[in-house]
């Protein structure tokens, strides 16, 4: 008789305990999920900021690479002209080549959109 009573009492006690633990765990889980979603939101916000920064830096890069190509081409042509006194032949030729080099620089930036990609050896 006593055995039966304890049997009847035991599971209900265990049940209560289990339910309490389950509640606690699911509460913690929900909390963690909330945290995670909040963190993700923050991360995406930081990502948007980083995106603008990356775009800005890319813009500066494109501008300076292009200008540098033209300027270096012009300088080489000008120097060759003063050496061979053929002004303005080399200046014109190398200015055109420098412009092409500037476009080539810009193309090379645009052709590999991610820094992570490695050139094949």
């Amino acid at each position, binding site marked *: 008789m006593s055995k039966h009573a304890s049997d009847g009492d035991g599971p209900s006690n265990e049940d209560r305990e289990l339910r309490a633990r389950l509640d606690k765990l699911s509460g913690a889980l929900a909390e963690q999920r909330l945290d995670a979603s909040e963190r993700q939101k923050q991360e995406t916000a930081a990502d948007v900021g980083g995106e603008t*920064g990356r775009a800005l830096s890319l813009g500066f890069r494109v501008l300076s*690479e292009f*200008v540098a190509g033209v300027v270096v081409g012009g300088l080489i042509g000008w120097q060759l002209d003063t050496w061979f006194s053929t002004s303005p032949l080399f200046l014109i030729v190398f200015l055109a080549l420098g412009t092409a*080099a*500037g476009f080539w620089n810009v193309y090379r930036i645009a052709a590999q959109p991610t*820094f992570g990609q490695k050139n094949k050896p």
Partner: protein
Amino acid sequence: MAAEGKAIDPIHQFEIHPIVNFSVGGVDLSFTNSSLFMVIILAAVSILMLWGTSSKSLVPGRLQSAAEMAYEFVASTVRGTAGESGMKFFPLIFSLFMFVFFSNVLGLIPYAYTVTSQIIVTFALAALVILTVLLYGFYKHGTHFLHLFVPSGVSPVLMPFIVLIEVISFVSRPVSLSVRLFANMLAGHITLKVFAGFVTMLLGAGAWAALAPLPLAAIVLLTGFELFVAILQAYVFAILTCVYLNDAIHPGH
């Protein structure tokens, strides 16, 4: 008017004054305010890295986590751009990044001198990078390194032009690397000074003084933007160094 013009001269901050006059064989080697700030930058970087790595605790303190973040940031940049074989250049890239970063950020402090606003400094840094690329490229690959300038699969008629363009493009790298950093810092600091000049000019212009808070607010915004540019340019300098070194490690496209 003359005194006012002198007070708002936006270029004045870039002047170099000798602190200790010193010359060897007619070459001026004076210790200038620029040199002083280079020493300050080196001291700041050394303090951060030495002090930050001295405790080696499992749960890092402020300085230790700053030092670890700097290391991890540069290391992941190098690995992502130049691959695992690029890590042998990590000391160079880390030194360059920390030097540029600290000189940009310390230059934002009022009365501080911005070392990277002098093109000779940035050009020296860029020349160091390009010379490393050239020396390592020729040392490692010999004449095969010249294949960097000769892309494959181009018709022989176009080849001389392509090679010339490639050479010009290569020569333009140190120019763009140095000019970008120098121009960003110079332009930012001049902008700040010009807006500060607006404040003093408006304050001295009678009823217009009511408008003086507007440029002052703009300075607050611009200072934040300048901080962003300072960090970004240090990062861009480091990542382009990696990209160029990658060419020396793996020449030929």
